[in-house]
């Protein structure tokens, strides 16, 4: 029986109370992307600035939601800021692998072996504190929201810009 302390590690509550990189960036040059959790209404807003070298030069976060979704957003921002897009994508895959080993079991679709490969050789650091979320399946979507939104934002940032 998992306890609350598995879910609410100290580092998570710290990010929740003092989110890193909170704020906005001018759009453009930054790209703004929003993510919703349809089930609970959690909202993540990301401002992404990817420079010509393909590096996430700046990143600000906003939104509202539970401790898990907001802490995950904050931790994501700290982990991704200043990193090349390719590395950010690796992190996304690794983090989702961490979370989805459980989810995919629920779906009965995979035994998680592909996922293990995604995790290999990626240093998650503080992010591993979110692993306890896996024991609370409903909260997994809280933790992954920021990462799905980031993934969408990176895709959109890389699309050719069509001026209105």
């Amino acid at each position, binding site marked *: *029986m998992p*306890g*609350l302390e598995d*879910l*609410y590690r100290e580092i998570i*509550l710290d990010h929740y*109370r003092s989110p890193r990189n909170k704020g906005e960036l001018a759009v453009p040059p930054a790209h703004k992307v929003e993510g919703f959790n349809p*089930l*609970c*209404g*959690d*909202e993540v807003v990301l401002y992404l600035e990817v420079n010509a070298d393909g590096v996430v030069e700046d990143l600000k976060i906003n939104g*509202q*939601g*539970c*401790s*898990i*979704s*907001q802490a995950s957003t904050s931790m994501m921002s700290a982990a991704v800021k200043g990193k090349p897009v390719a590395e950010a994508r690796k992190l996304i895959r690794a983090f989702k692998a961490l979370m989805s080993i459980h989810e995919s079991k629920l779906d009965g679709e995979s035994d998680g072996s592909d996922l293990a490969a995604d995790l290999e050789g990626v240093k998650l650091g503080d992010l591993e504190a979110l692993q306890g979320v896996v024991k*609370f399946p409903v*909260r997994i979507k*809280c933790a992954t929201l920021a990462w799905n939104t980031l993934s969408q934002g990176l895709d959109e940032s890389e699309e050719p810009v069509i001026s209105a």
Partner: protein
Amino acid sequence: MSVDVERIKKDFPIFEREVHGKRLVYLDSAASSQKPAVVLDAMDGVYRDHYANVHRGVYTIAEEATQAYEGARAKVAKFVGAPSSSEIVFTRNATESINLVAYSWARANLKAGDPIVLTQLEHHANVVPWHILAAERGVELRWIPLTADYRLDLSHLDELLDGAKLLAFSAMSNVLGTITDVAPLTQAAHAAGAKVLVDACQWVPHEPTDVKEWGADFVAFSAHKMLGPTGIGALWAPAELLDAMPPFMGGGDMIRDVRLDGFTPNDLPWKFEAGTPAFVEGVGFGAAVDYLEAIGMDNVRAHERAVTTYALDALHDRFGDRLTIYGPADIDVRGSAISFAFEGIHAHDVSQVLDEDGICVRAGHHCAKPLMRLLGISATSRASFYLYNDTDDADALVDGLTHVEQFFAL
């Protein structure tokens, strides 16, 4: 007679279980209610002893199943004051009831530019079907705003209703608890030439209902929120109106004749029930209505008001302004759903910590995102009380919330 909660809890098998070693404090009946054993036994009884497809069989068990199903329809009709059981269409849930109106009545009667008036406290079930219609047909959606005390702001009702073809609103908000006064709203809408749809999903389980007294044109509700099973809801509408509407879904049971070149629909209410109906669920619905009638809806209402008043007072006494309550303070204009929020502690986290104490409350937007946006929040916690809840449950909630505050204290 007052409601004897201790005895009632014994009728509901789920209260024998524990969560995390604690007794179950179920405060989420606004999402779905628990079921008494009599409802489960009624359904099990059909499956074990009288099961066969309804309406089309000549043999004994098919006839038994048909009578059980149609008998349940008569019970539900009586429970809400419908003049005839042919005016009760069984659907999957209140959501389908509303979609039926949107697909059948509205598509046959509304054209581009026709206004539909909704309120800003509607459940998505009474918003999205109209969005879909608006996208398809270009009807115009108008919104009744709210007052500062979480009630409908009717100061511009006449303008909103001007030219309107439909007024669709909830009799009781699942978020705020707000009761909307159906009869006068209906009169105003009718005077303006608009039809009226009442989303009575939160009303019928908790208050005596008389659809004729309301005078509305469509009334939607779900069994699962009123001690009945999942998989069945109802739409009431007067026979003349249902008769004039085209069918919604096509298939078996809803036809009188089918040819290669067309079909003739069946009589009411079957015209709107395509395919094998959820007839075992229908029997469960009937048993739920029997149970509620034995207790008496006046008693249910009185009991809920007492417990809700107690809970509101206890929350205020313990937490004061640290806890915001979203909904009318006046017990006479509210039901038993209490939405609340702590500053700085998200509803999800509140619910998670309460769960450790065996307390079930809902957290989120409660399928009312337009309302949440209006309130400027993304989520609330919601405790909702029913006939099987008592002041002990309210006390447990208040104590649980103290644990929440302690857990998230800096």
